[in-house]
Each structure stands twice: as C-alpha cells, then as structure tokens.
C-alpha cells in the first residue's frame, strides 16, 4: 500500500466562509501538487491546516499511518511533529539572524561540523555563495526567497508546503526561480504542495493540480487532464484554458 496524505476536512469561520478540503496524494514518491484558485478561495487555509498552523473544525488528516488531525477524537499534531516544511509568500526570514543562521535554524544544533556542512551545501546549491554572513535586509528579493527555501529544506522535511512561493518576486526573477524550483524539488525528491493563483506556475511546476473555488475543491487530477478537460467554465477560467 502506498503511503498517502489524505485530507478530508472542513474549516468553518465564525464570520466568514466555510472551507472544505478533499485531498489524496502519495507521499513516498516525488510529485508536485498545485493548489490553484482565485484569492480568498481558501487555499492558504487548507495549507495551514495541513501544516498544523490552523485547526480544522471537523474531518480528518492523515499521513501514512500517522493521524495528524482527527476532529472526532480531538487529535491535532503540532507542526513540530509533522516533519514538514512550510514556506510562506513573504519568506519570514529571521531578521536578527544571518543567512547561515537562518538556514541552520531548524537543524539539530548538536553536531556543529555537520550543521556547517549542510549549510555550505545548500548555499552553493541555491547560488548563495559568499552571502552566509549577510542579514536578510541586505539581500534582494530573489536571494531572500532562496534563503527561505534553503532554510525550509535544511532539516529534510518529508513533505513541503509552498504558499505562493514566487508571487513576491519581479517577473524576470520569478521566471528564473520557477525553473530552479522544479529542478531542486526533483533533485531532493521531496513531494510538495504548492499554492498558487498563476496557471503558468501550475504548468511549470506541478504534476497534479487541485482546483479550488469559493471554499471547495472543484476538480483534481493530472495537470494535462484538468487543463484539457475542465469540468466547467469556472475551472477552465481558473486554470487559464478558457
């Protein structure tokens, strides 16, 4: 049996919409899943629930044979114990730490030599050589983005959540990083779920796509299939094939 990430939950807000998620993704092999939808459709809420930063009102999330969240039994694993990586749109780099300090942040501090080696390896892989002593405010947007990515993957997470990873960048940098991102994810073999509102990113990054609109999943499947056979005009508009 393939280990799966299965999520079937609802997140209700007191004065706001109800977000429903239904997701099944294999997590023992590499694949990138894009979660696409217009802004405000609940993509980020779904990602936050998966990461353990928000709590579903009801339903269940499991990862292989681990139960991450179960509304019925009240189980809710904190993000620290899910073994995941989460990258936000604004990067959230620690302003009081250097580039090296940021990248090493999630690594167990025990073995200093090993930490230094891992940091050096990521610095060169993400073309950040020579920037290790800089502070985040001394970096360009593209550099900050790569530091944030390095920091997220440094502890070797089992699953990556990327929330609009390229949206805060200018167009040329975005195009450059889009290609780099797909190549790196494939190299690391870390399955990823990427939230985006940009159909170009879906085509360039993802294998599978989940289309959300107004708080619910409208269609999901392999990218080509969804692009070629959208279930309705709404989905077609969101994935840009209308």
């Amino acid at each position: 049996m393939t280990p799966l990430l299965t999520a079937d939950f609802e997140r209700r807000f007191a004065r706001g919409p109800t977000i429903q998620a239904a997701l099944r993704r294999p997590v023992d092999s590499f694949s990138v899943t894009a979660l696409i939808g217009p802004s405000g459709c609940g993509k980020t809420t779904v990602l936050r629930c998966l990461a353990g930063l928000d709590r579903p009102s009801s339903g269940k999330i499991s990862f292989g044979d681990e139960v991450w969240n179960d509304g019925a039994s009240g189980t809710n694993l904190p993000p620290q114990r899910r073994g995941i990586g989460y990258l936000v749109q604004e990067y959230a780099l620690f302003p009081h730490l250097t580039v090296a300090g940021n990248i090493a942040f999630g690594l167990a501090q025990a073995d200093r030599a090993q930490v230094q080696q891992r940091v050096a390896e990521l610095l060169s892989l993400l073309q950040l050589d020579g920037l290790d002593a800089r502070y985040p405010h001394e970096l360009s947007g593209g550099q900050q983005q790569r530091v944030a990515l390095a920091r997220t993957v440094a502890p070797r997470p089992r699953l990556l959540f990327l929330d609009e990873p390229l949206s805060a960048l200018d167009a040329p940098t975005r195009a450059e990083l889009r290609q780099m991102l797909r190549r790196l994810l494939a190299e690391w073999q870390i399955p990823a779920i990427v939230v985006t509102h940009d159909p170009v990113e879906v085509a360039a990054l993802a294998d599978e796509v989940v289309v959300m609109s107004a708080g619910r999943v409208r269609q999901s499947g392999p990218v080509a299939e969804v692009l070629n056979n959208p279930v309705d005009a709404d989905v077609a508009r969101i994935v840009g094939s209308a």
Partner: protein
Amino acid sequence: MDWTAFRLTLSVASCTTAILFALGLPLAAWLARPGGRWRFLIETVVALPLVLPPTVLGFYILWAAGPRTLPGQWYETIFGSRLPFTFQGIVLASVLYNLPFAVRPFAAALAAVDRQLIEASWCLGVSRLATFRRVTFPLAWRGILAGLVLTFAHAVGEFGVVLMVGGNIPGVTRTLSVSIYEDVQALDYASAAHSSLVLVAFAFAVLSLVHLLERKPRSA
C-alpha cells in the same frame, strides 16, 4: 539624606523588578497570543493598579495577609512570620502595584513580533519554548528591557501602598519616598529636598533611557 532608606528603596525596587520579570513575562506571553475569549478579563485585572488608589490595594493586601484569612495563615505556617510591616510585605505590595508597568510593555513588545516568524520556527521543528528563546525574545528584548526599567523606576517611587502595608520602620520598610514624607512631617526640609532631588534626577535618567530604548536603531 537617609542612606538606609536609599539602600532599602533600591532593594525593594530590584526585588520587584526581578519578580515581575519572572512572573510577568509568561503572563505577557499568554496575553500577546492571538485569540482567547476571556483574555480581556485578565487584561483588565492587570491594568487595575493603574486606576485604583494605592490605599485600596494596600487595604486588601493587609486584609489578605492578616492572621484571620487563609493566605495569611498559610504564610505564617510556612515562614513563621506575618507579611504586614516586613520587607517581604512591601515587596509583595510593590509587585502587585507595579504589575501593569511590567506586563503591559512586555505584552506590547511580544505582540509586535511578526507571527509568521514564530510559525516559521514551529514548522522547522523548534518547540514553542525554544521558539520563544530563539525568535520572540531576541526580537522583543528592547521593549522588555524598557518595561523592566520603567518597573524599577516606578517601584523606586512607590509611596502609598508601601506605607499602607509596610508602615514606616527604619531599615525595614521606610523607603526613600516614605522618608521624604517623614522629613516633611518633622519640618526637616533640607533632608526632604536632598532626597527629592535624588529621585528627580533618577527618574529623569530612567525615562531618558526608556525613550532611547524605544527608538528603533535599525529596521530589518
């Protein structure tokens, strides 16, 4: 000037500041979290000493610490003495009275730390306590230090509640502000003027320091 009172004042203020750092920081961290339906009640209780007359607080401390109430009896069984008119008594009074001067700046400083940074740390597998130590505290320390300095300064100047709970025992509960009151009662204006000038100079220095701390040196 009454040097015994001066030293006593510094010890009361130091103890108050140390205790409020230890107790006020967790309380402020709890208050700075988002959400919480009943949080406003705790916020109100913390802010009460700002508006209550010190005599009211002093009266309740005397009542609670007296020999006829449970807390007072427990204290006497454990420590073998009573709280009112002792050094420990005025420290307790000073801690309660200065609660808002520590907790409110702490909570403001902690709440100003970007929530995304804290969540990023959790997602990197770092525990809540370690996240506080490695992210929240380093980013909020200026505001926390400003709160500590303000608490210390305010504790130095405390008068009403100290007089209520501690009385006016030289070397035990007679702080500088109480000694000024005593000097004026005894028509010793020279000594009162001396002590007052010391307190003014001290307050000026402390408030300058707080304002310097609150001025951000660099933005990230």
